[in-house]
């Protein structure tokens, strides 16, 4: 499917979109989950997971190049209209569930760290109001917000590592590779989810002008986020002791607690507020992908889906309880692993075989 040139974006912007899709609330707490089994060797797992994501990017580009469209086109080409629509629908649901999971994570942080008494629906509607405004402006606005979410918080994300590094105990990381293969695999699996998000490419591919040349930017972005996550893991690992990190829910946020400025005693208020930029950009991207797909599958206006999904998110955020949240997170993680690291490569193989047959026949 061809998209009007007016709606397309330059290839280098893919860097910012991919970066934005990968960095969410995960970076604030993934250090604990990856260290749960693999201990302080887990940072190696992040690098390994980064390599997997690079391969995944390559697979996605191959797949989309062959079909010359988004995942909805791929599905309808391979499976026909009806079955293809059903499969695409599942992926759109994944995008939406992922956005809900990010939103709930952020709401929890706001409630624990800043406003313990504020009801979820107020935070949720304020954020989603902003997101609705972004998404209804079209894909170019979403990209613009992605760009901002890279530039502004990036300075803070990296500069703030200086403070904990002053008290770092680098010998904490020794001895290296002291865990079994299974433990390491667990760390890789958990980092895969924190590094997830690149699958948004499956929807926005047709919106890139001269898409082939954007490949290197996507790979670069993944390289950058992998390094960012590795550095973040190492900073936390050298700052906390191993049993301390296992009971800290948001190691990265707790790092911020050591910063004290004479005019600002509690720095994390600023930090969490700044995180709104990152989170709303990510939500905008995920909701854009989801609604764009639904629009193509069901042939209705994108805005309608956006309103429906946003309202559903608000309702869920208010009604959900702790138990259900754990289940949701688990489902999203599993879906992400199975759909994008199991199903998409198979899809590529099927598509290649079909193409070959067509050429031969």
């Amino acid at each position, binding site marked *: 499917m061809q998209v009007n040139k007016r709606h397309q974006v330059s290839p280098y912007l893919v860097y910012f979109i991919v970066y934005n899709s990968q960095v969410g609330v995960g970076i604030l707490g993934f250090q604990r989950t990856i260290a749960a089994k693999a201990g302080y060797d887990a940072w190696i797992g992040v690098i390994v997971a980064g390599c997997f994501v690079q391969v995944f990017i390559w697979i996605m580009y191959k797949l989309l190049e062959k079909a010359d469209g988004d995942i909805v086109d791929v599905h309808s080409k391979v499976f026909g209209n009806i079955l293809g629509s059903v499969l695409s629908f599942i992926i759109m649901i994944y995008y939406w569930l992922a956005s809900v999971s990010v939103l709930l994570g952020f709401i929890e942080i706001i409630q624990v760290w800043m406003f313990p008494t*504020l009801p979820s629906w107020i935070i949720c509607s304020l954020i989603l109001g902003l997101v609705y405004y972004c998404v209804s402006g079209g894909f170019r606005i979403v990209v613009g917000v992605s760009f901002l979410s890279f530039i502004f918080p990036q300075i803070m994300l990296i500069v703030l590592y200086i403070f904990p590094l002053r008290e770092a105990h680098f010998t904490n990381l020794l001895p290296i590779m002291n865990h079994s293969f299974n433990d390491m695999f667990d760390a890789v699996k958990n980092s895969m989810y924190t590094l997830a998000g690149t699958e948004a490419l499956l929807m926005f591919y047709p919106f890139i002008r001269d898409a082939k040349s954007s490949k290197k930017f996507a790979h670069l972005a993944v390289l950058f986020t992998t390094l960012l996550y590795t550095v973040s893991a190492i900073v936390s690992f050298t700052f906390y*002791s*191993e049993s301390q990190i296992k009971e800290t829910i948001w190691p990265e946020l707790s790092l911020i*607690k050591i910063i004290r400025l004479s005019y600002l*005693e509690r720095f994390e208020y600023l930090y969490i507020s700044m995180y709104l930029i990152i989170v709303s950009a990510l939500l905008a991207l995920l909701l854009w992908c989801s609604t764009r797909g639904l629009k193509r599958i069901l042939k209705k206006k994108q805005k309608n889906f956006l309103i429906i999904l946003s309202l559903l998110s608000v309702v869920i955020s208010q009604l959900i309880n702790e138990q259900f949240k754990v289940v949701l997170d688990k489902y999203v993680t599993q879906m992400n692993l199975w759909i994008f690291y199991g199903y998409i490569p198979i899809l590529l193989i099927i598509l290649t075989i079909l193409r070959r047959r067509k050429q031969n026949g």
Partner: protein
Amino acid sequence: MANRTLIGIWVTIFLLSGCSLIPTNIVNQINMNQGAGYDWAGKNTIKGTITFPIYKKDKPSTTEVKISLGETSKEIWSNINNESRYPLVSGQLRVVLFGESLAKKGITDVVDTLNRDPSIGSIIQMAVVDGDASELLKIEKFKTENVSLFVQEMLDQSMKSDNLPESNLQTYLFQFTQNGQDPYLPLIKQIEDNIKIIGIAILKDDRYVFPIFMEDAFTLKCLVDKYKQGLQRFTLENGEMVVLDNLRSKVHYQVKINKGRPEFTINLKMKTRLQEFTSPKKKRVALDKKHIQKEIAGQLEKNSLKLIKKFQKHGVDPLGLGAKYREHDRSFNKKKWKRFYPTAKVHVHVNVNIKQTGTVN
């Protein structure tokens, strides 16, 4: 068009009133808790002391000290809240003191609460009081001078430019949770109307066991901190007295495993500056730099070994030798280490370098 303006105005009103939806704390309608002290009151109860400043128009600020009994620290908190005009908030907490009686029973419960509260920073000072923490906070002289700020700044100053090793909530938590290390905290005492740092409290797990007094603090600080300033007097064999100011010291721990048992070599390199030199001959004698350096190094080695022997005798490990051993042994086992520690061989090599001798030679 008019319709849109109306919507715009409506949204603005909604958002502005949204500010009242979000909970606020007005600065002159809260009591900002700056210092807290905890003592053991017998029968599972803790005596908590909380100080906060009271600001009044056109008058110097005064410090209010409130005392209450309770079984947990937050219960004390709410008891004190019941007798104050404005709600207490903890975002400005600077210093937490533990009375000797409580420190000997264990301070984990209180520290865990401090760590759990997101509004408390992790670089707040903690100290053990030789005596009663509430008595110390109640000193009449400090009614007009803020006692908690006084203690915090005194400790800060001593850690930066004197012989107290660096410690705060984060270092305490790190050392406490680190496998193979025990924490230490500053030890302060009320002497008549004054507050004085008298040494360092060595803790076993979370219980205060014995003090290291100020004359050994210099040696301990050299062994645990990177490079800091601090003065120390040395008396040489021939009666000459030398005061050295540590400019930069670096300590390096080497671990060798000999027949399954760890052996430690501590290499300490110091760059110092000579500040005072007096001779019993009552006349100016030439400085024999090499001789002084060697003799002081010998004294420091002896002193360090004496300290380490003391730690080994009590089974406490503030130097973190266990953690260092763990870095080098993949089959580290806490039980095994506990058996090894009292008899572990430790060698200390000190290298003192007098860089400057002031303006005279």
